[in-house]
């Protein structure tokens, strides 16, 4: 079907661009491979979990950094570490990279640096969330049109 092909093409291109721009890495592909008939929405579910976790962690960091009487950098660092682990689960490369820089600032107890990183991380997370939602929408359109999701290597 032409529509399906078109959609599939769009999907492939979009996926490729996400990889190219560093939003996603190979881990995301692995997740797509894990998806099967037993768990047809596996990737979407994992992504949802990731978003939830992300938001929670970002809030924790924001709260910790807001403390006027003294920032508990260890706590911030713990959250960043968790976020780093989480982002590695879905292949969120850019988020993960910010986390790495973030951790150095935590170690140096640099509040300004941390706040900057927090901003960056929030930004990257929002970007990624939007892009993934677009991707999932495409997926659904393909399925609705009777096609199958192509796996992008």
């Amino acid at each position, binding site marked *: 079907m032409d529509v399906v092909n078109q959609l599939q093409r769009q999907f492939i291109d979009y996926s490729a661009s996400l990889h190219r721009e560093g939003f996603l890495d190979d881990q995301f592909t692995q997740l797509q491979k894990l998806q099967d008939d037993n768990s047809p929405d596996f990737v979407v579910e994992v992504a949802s979990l990731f978003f939830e*976790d992300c938001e929670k962690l970002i809030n924790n960091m924001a709260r910790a950094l807001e403390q006027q009487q003294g920032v508990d950098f260890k706590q911030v660092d713990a959250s960043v570490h968790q976020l780093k682990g989480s982002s590695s689960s879905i292949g969120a490369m850019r988020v993960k990279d910010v986390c790495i820089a973030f951790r150095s600032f935590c170690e140096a107890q640099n509040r300004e640096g941390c706040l900057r990183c927090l901003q960056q991380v929030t930004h990257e997370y929002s970007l990624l969330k939007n892009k993934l939602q677009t991707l999932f929408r495409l997926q659904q359109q393909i399925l609705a049109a009777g096609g199958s999701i192509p796996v992008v290597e």
Partner: protein
Amino acid sequence: MVLAESGFSSPRNDAFPAGLRVLVVDDDPTWLKILEKMLKKCSYEVTTCCLAREALNLLRERKDGYDIVISDVNMPDMDGFKLLEHVGLEMDLPVIMMSVDGETSRVMKGVQHGACDYLLKPIRMKELRNIWQHVFRKKIHEVRDIESLEGFESIQMTRSGYDLFDDGHFLSGDDTTSGRKRKDADNKHDDRELSDPSSTKKARVVWTVDLHQKFVKAVNQIGFDKVGPKKILDLMNVPWLTRENVASHLQKYRLYLSRLQKESDIKNSFIGMKHSDLPSKDSTASFGPHKAMNMIPDDVPNSTYSFSASNSQAQNVDLKGQGDLKGITSAPMAEPKGALSVDIRDSHEAKSTQMSFDHSLGSVDSAVSFASFNSTTPLQYPWTEIPEIQFKQECESLHLENGFSQLPLPGPSMIENEANRSRIEVKPLLDDCRSNFVEHLGPVGAEDLFPIQSKSQSLNNQVFDLISATKSSMKTQDVGLNYLADSEFALRNLNASGVGVPLATLSEDLQICWLQGDCYPMNYGLQDLECSTYDNPALMAETPFHLYDVLRFDHEHLFDPAEYYAIDQGLFA
């Protein structure tokens, strides 16, 4: 979760490794879901868990319900390494660690704690496919061990053959290899000594409470500083037990005790001044010959060990002591902040005698009797064989014999920070250990101040056995340094002897405990002590261990008191 038979005999194992029962522990929900999916794709039977505590419960409920455990290193309720230790001690299952952090030091720590593998996130399918190897390997070793046990004679031979080797091994303190390596070394030795080619690796022994009690009794009898697997084995008089069994159990025991000790040291530092009845005379008397800082690698683990053993409720002997300890410990804990700032130095000035703790069994009772805490009953501390704790009360003689780096004396604020940081690590059990120590230290000056001081000192001692009594003299900051150095030394020894005590953490604790002698940092996040509970005479009695914990601490507990109890039980069951 399917309760399947163990070993290779169950039907589900027909297509081994299919059906391998894996327990995954990770606080990250995303990873938990992914790992579950991946493991299912490997045809494994997966159980997921996001809390370490929950995981331990699951494992304990079905001792034979899982083949392998995969756990993340960073978890909120418990350090992954601790979980690793527990699983190794209680269930003896292979444990794989995972983390997004691949720093060599972390990986090394994992291996030291007994991890059979350390995976880096993101984890690939092929890595998970291979985890069955670890299960298989362990089973093979067990089978071999069991077979080798069959001949009592071979055991005897092994014993005598290994005696020297092992004792030296343990006491030398320079064995930094993991348990497995030692095992291999033992095996080699075995091959040399015995013509029997079968390797006598550690058999999978179930350390029941009874067995462990025998073990602890033997350890106590021998004297912690002189303990060695063969001696223990001989005393235990359990025919089917091999020296290797005892050796590996001893290693785990030490690890466990050192952890407890660390915690209790921290706790003990808050020792209140409630009990100051012990006449200084007595305390002096009970002390053995003074010695310069005596750092016997075994000491530290031993002391911690015996303590934890006593903590196990199942052990009557220990319980008694524990009860006493609890009372004592509680007292210090109750110490109000202000009180701690007592100038211990004054009290110590009067005493320039060196007090060294000879924790051999013989002196335990006497030492106990004049513990600064009013314990009327002689405490039977199975761990009394703790190696000597040098308690130098002299202000002048600061023996930095250990040559370890002297840590700068942190200021009070630092202590607080340290305290806060280490609070997570503190376990109630340690308090008991500490109180024990305190008792042994005896009051230098039978003043109210003394208890605190000795307590803090005992704390240090506890942790590091080394305690050079410089701390008690507290006259100079140097003393503190010595302590710290001692602690470090002890830590190193601990590490050297295979105890997986993280040096860094211990240092922290040391600093905390250490400084306490001079100025009790009252801001240990560790405790929201309720003074009233400490004064509670009931506490002086044999309070159940877990209850004690509940009463005592308000800080972050790694385990519920009940669980702690269970853990104790489980550790040596």
